């Protein structure tokens, strides 16, 4: 049993604009999270109100039956208030966003194996999907 209890986590902030419904966004994520590959550790609805304050609505505050209320969140509260402040710095007044903390479960065991083998990850760089797609369509 290795030292890692979790894999690396992506903090994904999805802007909610115009007609986009949060239920639709959550439903888009649903097929890929809650599995051996990816797992939803934390989730929160964020918005900046008229006074400039960032308001958070937690999953537990939603009514049962709401597709978001039914989300299985494995480490609620993982993302701190400090992180939320940093991530929502550019969120304009009146705008809202959904924050997903997604764990790469597949990478946890890999991390343990790598550590046992004496391997050291030097850097990890995320290239956005649009960039890869554009680069490969040349």
């Amino acid at each position: 049993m290795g030292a890692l209890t979790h894999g690396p986590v992506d903090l994904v902030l999805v802007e909610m604009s115009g007609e986009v419904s949060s239920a639709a966004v959550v439903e888009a994520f649903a097929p890929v999270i809650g599995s051996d590959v990816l797992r939803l550790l934390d989730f929160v609805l964020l918005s900046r109100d008229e006074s400039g304050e960032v308001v958070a609505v937690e999953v537990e505050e939603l009514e049962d039956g709401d597709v978001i209320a039914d989300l299985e969140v494995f480490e609620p509260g993982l993302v701190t208030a400090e992180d939320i402040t940093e991530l929502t710095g550019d969120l304009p007044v009146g705008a809202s966003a959904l924050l997903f903390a997604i764990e790469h479960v597949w990478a946890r065991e890999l991390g343990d194996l790598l550590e046992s083998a004496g391997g050291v990850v030097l850097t990890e760089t995320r290239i956005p999907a649009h960039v890869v797609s554009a680069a490969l369509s040349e």
Partner: protein
Amino acid sequence: MLMRRFGRPGLIGLAARTAVVAGTATAVAGGMRRAQYNRAQGDAAVQQEQIRDEVAAQTAPPPAPAAAGAPDFMGELNQLAQLHSSGVLSDDEFAAAKAKLLG
């Protein structure tokens, strides 16, 4: 917000600071990317332990606050010493930074 979101250091800051300690901090400036890797710290077990120590240090309860108006010498000296021992600061840089801090 959930109570659990308060009273703990942010994950984003922890990730950035442990990268510095482990010697894997990168700088992106003017499009150039520089990865810093200290061969002496290349042992994976050593590096992982450094990261665990750094996170533990960050999540430890804060020390009693310094007297009002007094700069936090001990805290800053500790930070400099950590950066020096992990290879981020050279001997010269460390000596210069220490001299500057102590005036």
